[in-house]
């Protein structure tokens, strides 16, 4: 026992410092980014005083603004479509029985696992082929040919976002008690009402989580987008990359800071929503064996209940 103690302390230390390092590695660069977006010095690693000049310059950088609008539009549309498709897909492969169901369950995550470069190249090949055929069919020449742009980016984003939404929704479907849906039917609800009143609200945390994930992934996707974007439309990550290659522009720091702030807000919002919901619904159905045995535990449990209820009207 005595000999073990130092090793345990060492383990704690190792785990603790590893965790700290993870945060340091992630947040120090972000902090630098934020700091430099307010840095008057245009280049180099020195601090030239505080300014918001880059933020105002941002709004004059038309290319960045257009790219940002594109990104937002694409993310919103792709997320909306992916949430609907992904949820329907999860319901289909988890709640229906059909031939090839197991296979369908296996391949649904392929876009999640496949390297983005593969997906990107594949989509590029697919779009060149179909657009070429379509142009031939419509008799369009070099002038008015259909090219890759926002629609192809949206389709590509829908493709991988759907897989991520399905991933998240399926995990919440799997923990959903199937007798809930039977209970709804038993009480007179048809399939439609059962879905809207019971199934969907029950898996809503999963659906929202999936939407959040899809939105974020779409917003900052680079590799796939790079392959399927055309001259007409770029997204923010691609535009930022392009501008950085030419000059180091502090405006890029500014817009990155804004995006980071926005995603943090989004994440905090999602966490708040989820914790409110789960606090309301906290399932206290405990198996008998886990019921508090002694008085003290019972008292604690009762107290917990009271604390929990104080928030209620």
């Amino acid at each position, binding site marked *: 026992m005595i000999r073990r103690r130092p090793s345990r302390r060492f383990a704690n230390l190792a785990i603790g410092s590893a965790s700290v390092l993870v945060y340091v590695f992630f947040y120090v660069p972000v902090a630098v980014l934020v700091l430099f977006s307010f840095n008057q010095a245009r280049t180099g690693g020195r601090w030239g005083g505080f300014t918001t000049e880059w933020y105002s310059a941002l709004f004059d950088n038309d290319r960045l603004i257009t790219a940002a609008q594109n990104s937002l539009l694409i993310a919103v549309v792709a997320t909306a479509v992916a949430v609907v498709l992904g949820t329907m897909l999860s319901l289909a492969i988890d709640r229906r029985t059909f031939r090839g169901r197991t296979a369908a369950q296996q391949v649904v995550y392929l876009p999640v696992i496949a390297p983005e470069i593969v997906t990107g190249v594949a989509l590029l090949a697919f779009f060149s082929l179909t657009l070429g055929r379509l142009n031939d069919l419509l008799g369009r020449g070099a002038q008015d040919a259909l090219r890759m742009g926002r629609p192809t980016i949206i389709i590509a984003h829908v493709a991988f976002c759907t897989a991520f939404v399905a991933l998240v929704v399926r995990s919440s479907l799997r923990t959903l008690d199937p007798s809930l849906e039977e209970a709804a039917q038993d*009480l007179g609800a048809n399939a439609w009402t059962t879905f809207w009143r019971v199934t969907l609200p029950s898996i809503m945390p999963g659906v929202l989580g999936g939407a959040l994930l899809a939105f974020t992934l779409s917003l900052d996707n680079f590799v796939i987008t790079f392959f399927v974007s055309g001259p007409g439309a770029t997204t923010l990550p691609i535009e930022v990359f392009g501008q950085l290659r030419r000059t180091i522009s502090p405006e890029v720091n500014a817009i990155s800071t804004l995006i980071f702030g926005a995603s943090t807000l989004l994440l905090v919002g999602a966490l708040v929503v989820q914790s409110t919901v789960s606090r309301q619904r906290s399932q206290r159905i405990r198996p008998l064996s886990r019921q508090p045995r002694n008085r003290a535990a019972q008292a604690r449990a009762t107290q917990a209940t009271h604390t929990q209820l104080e928030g209620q009207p």
Partner: protein
Amino acid sequence: MDQHSQRGTVSLRKVTKRFGDAVAVNAVNLEVEAGEFISLLGPSGCGKTTTLRMISGFELPTEGRVHISGRDATDTPPHLRTVNSVFQSYALFGHMTVAENVAFGLRVKRRDKPTIERKVQETLDLVQLSDFGSRFPGQLSGGQQQRVALARAVINEPDVLLLDEPLSALDLKLRQAMRYELTRLHDELAMTFVFVTHDQTEAITMSDRIAVMDQGEIHQLGTPVDIYERPATRFVAEFIGEVNMLEATVVGGDGTRTEVLLSSGDRLTCAPVGDSRLTPGVSVVLTVRPQRVLLTPEGGIDSQEHASLRGELRELLFLGDSTRGTVGLADGTELVAVRHNEDGTHPFGTLRPGDRVDVGWRHGTACLVQ
């Protein structure tokens, strides 16, 4: 009978359910009367849930028909059947308050708001949860959740209420309280209850009639007293309570009495039996409850009114409220007698292990089963 008076009846007609090759329910016939409390009792996997789910409509019978309230409901989907269920897991909607849960059935039937509100309050009163309407199910104890599940079902005034082991998730004390609660609810609502359980005490204390099931078949349908005192099959005798079982062969008899030869070599008359299948040569099992077995010194049993056997007292076991005597018969088979201890005196007098004794029982208390 006209439709109206059949409201609340359930009739299963040669209902069979197969899952692939496995037969879960085998040609079951069951007539449930309006307003009765009937239990489906049997060990795990005997097909109770499957039977219940064919009444609620969640399983389609492979063969046979299901009639509810006098109408053939075999092909009616669950949401159109006039039955409601209480699920074993309660299946409460976690995202709705208690009141919303209870109102669900009336909402989907588009009843008007004042009616819904009034009935929700009435039903919550009925299950003694008047002040819990605005809570969420996750904030209730197991017993309270159970009562919400009950309220949510009975508010729809179904012809038949189906309950699948509703008490099994509760601890012993709560289970006993809920037994009483359910019986009270049944009396108040005058609704047909079909109750599934594997707990014989639950079935015996609550039911008007019990259907004892094993391996997809109903072995016996009868009142708790019938089932306990006159088990129809060896399985029923063994499943309900403690029982002595003696292997025997029919050697004679007439319409009212049957003579059997026990493996111990004793000949006994069992009366009345009146089962035409008990012809000489058939092997049977004689069953008798330990509480019905008399245990006396040799010659102490009146053989006019009693069947009696000779044996040796092997063991006496004091059990607190009763004493249990084990007697070895001539061929070594054992017979158990249990007697209540009264005001401190020994229920079997001065008998001690090793004594020669007579054991017996009043004619009519033992049953022959196959």
